[in-house]
């Protein structure tokens, strides 16, 4: 997690990184790109065939001879494909270097690790910030609404393109966990093992409500221009920053905020009797908001939050969750965190009950931590031990040799 930085300004500052850096990555990402032409449209749930489109992705490690060691990592709402390398826009380390890297549970010397930017994202896969080839202008709100199943369908096309039939593991937290579950529901035979962390099989009413708050903040920014801000060469960074600030609170916990900040003042002894960021927690949130808008597109935020809202695996299976997993042979590991109130343990438990009802092989661990939903991105040794053991046990069953698994 990013540390507290001093942000003395009373309002949210403008981005330090120019819009050009961000928009360049949208169409010309500094990672591998798979192009899908008119012969391979992406059939979206909304009924539209998206074509042409592209998927930006990163890989780490080598695919073994029998193509059995591929691991797909699915990123969360504001993540991207830069899971274990320096981010091309922010210059910060990869977002999951705690889990992915030499000696880590997902070790590139053992596994061929793939992470792709989701459809609708803004780091190189086709999304609302991309150029619409039909008009030569940025898609904006003309971009079709996408869903979690759409993201997974696009990933499956990428996996096909890479010549991989069965993934050894699909791994992800939060929105990434939703994609993991969608993979197992849509392509059970292609997923040998699934590690679903801090997620749910549906988005709760409270979570939809928080997303709506964020979207309204973006849309209330006069710079949003009904989504056509790119044509004006501007970005609704104030609205997006507020959306991020609100969302960020939901990723933490009361205990974690209290431990980190308490009621401590920021660079001052006494209150200023103004609306400056007197409290450290205010300064921290403003920093989170302003750094987020440097790397993320506002419309993309609208589309991806919407995709999560629509997610409901049971809804796609006559309201019976267990039907989604009937007869599945995938090995599951479900992990939740005690202080996560965005995707609480009860959601994971409902998933586990459905998997039990399907006689699926499932491990389920709830990890005690006060760090809230974000715990899955942080240094939580018990989580790493469990992930490592689950992957090793699956690797043994899969017949991966000691060298590659």
């Amino acid at each position, binding site marked *: 997690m990013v540390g507290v930085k001093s942000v003395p300004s009373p309002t949210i500052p403008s981005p330090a990184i120019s819009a050009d850096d961000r928009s360049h990555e949208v169409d010309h990402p500094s990672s591998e790109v798979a192009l899908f032409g008119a012969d391979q449209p992406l059939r979206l749930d909304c009924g539209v065939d998206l074509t042409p489109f592209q998927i930006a992705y990163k890989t780490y490690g080598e695919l073994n001879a029998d193509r059995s060691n591929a691991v797909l990592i699915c990123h969360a709402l504001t993540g991207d494909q830069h899971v274990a390398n320096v981010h091309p826009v922010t210059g910060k380390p990869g977002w999951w270097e705690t889990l992915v890297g030499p000696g880590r549970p997902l070790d590139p010397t053992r596994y061929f690790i793939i992470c792709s930017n989701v459809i609708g994202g803004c780091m190189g896969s086709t999304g609302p910030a991309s150029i619409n080839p039909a008009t030569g202008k940025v898609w904006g709100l003309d971009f079709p609404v996408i869903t979690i199943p759409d993201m997974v369908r696009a990933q499956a096309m990428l996996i096909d393109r890479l010549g991989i039939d069965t993934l050894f593991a699909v791994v992800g937290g939060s929105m990434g966990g939703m994609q993991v579950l969608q993979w197992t529901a849509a392509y059970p035979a292609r997923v040998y093992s699934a590690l679903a962390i801090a997620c749910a099989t549906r988005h709760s009413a409270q979570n939809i409500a928080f997303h709506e708050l964020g979207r309204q903040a973006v849309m209330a920014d006069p710079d949003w221009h009904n989504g056509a801000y790119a044509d004006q060469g501007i970005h609704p960074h104030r609205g997006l920053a507020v959306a991020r600030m609100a969302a960020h609170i939901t990723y933490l916990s009361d205990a974690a905020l209290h431990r980190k900040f308490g009621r401590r003042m920021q660079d001052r002894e006494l209150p200023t009797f103004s609306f400056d960021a007197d409290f450290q927690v205010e300064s921290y949130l403003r920093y989170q908001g302003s750094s987020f808008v440097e790397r993320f597109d506002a419309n993309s935020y609208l589309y991806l939050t919407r995709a999560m809202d629509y997610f409901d695996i049971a809804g796609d299976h006559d309201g019976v969750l267990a039907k989604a997993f009937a007869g599945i042979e995938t090995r599951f590991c479900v992990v939740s965190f005690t202080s996560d109130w965005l995707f609480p343990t009860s959601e994971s438990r409902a998933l586990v009950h459905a998997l039990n009802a399907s*006689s699926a092989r499932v491990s389920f661990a709830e990890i005690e931590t006060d760090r809230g939903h974000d715990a899955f991105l942080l240094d939580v040794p018990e989580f790493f031990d469990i992930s490592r*053991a689950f992957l*090793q046990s699956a690797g043994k069953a899969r017949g991966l040799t000691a060298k590659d698994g």
Partner: protein
Amino acid sequence: MSVQEVLPLNGLASEQSGPFRADHLLVAEMVKPGSKVLDVGCGEGDLLQLLETRGIDGRGIELSREGVNRCVAKGLAVVQGDADTDLVNYPDDAFDYVILSQTLQATRQPKVVLENLLRIGRRAIVSFPNFGFWRMRLQLLVGGHMPRTENLPASWYDTANIHFCTIKDFVELCDEIHVKMERAEALDLYGRPLRLRLPWWVWNLFGEQGVFLLSRGQGK
């Protein structure tokens, strides 16, 4: 001086056969190789690991978070759950065997749990401490205290074990709910089966614990 001190009860842990507990070895021996097994109340997964070495597809449920996390960190397929409330989520005939090892006495509704075991599994293996064991009786008779042993060291006010029974009680319950006893064993203090085919009352007096292989009876 308490009865506990007069009669130090040797638990199973002190007299192990190899790396595995004697009662676990007996349970494992009852399971046919290649079966699918659910271990309810699997603790830290020792029995599941033993079953795994014999090529048995084992799953577990455990109430304590620490136990579950240790199991998962061993690569075992274990979920956090409660025998009283979570067995209902499993479909009929999901397993060849469902094992309830030293857990029956800690459930709120032992009868319902037993019925669920034999709904989910074609067979059930149940082991429990026998409160008819002579040392238990002696602690109550002579010492006037609720019995405590190395295996069950908690005091009456903080024990998780709320439904103790004797071997005789358990046999009667099986009859009542039409459960067929395919095999019964009484284990001595060291977890070794009492080899002789003795009448129930002898087992009830000299068995420190009972281990039963059960299947659905005619009435079911």
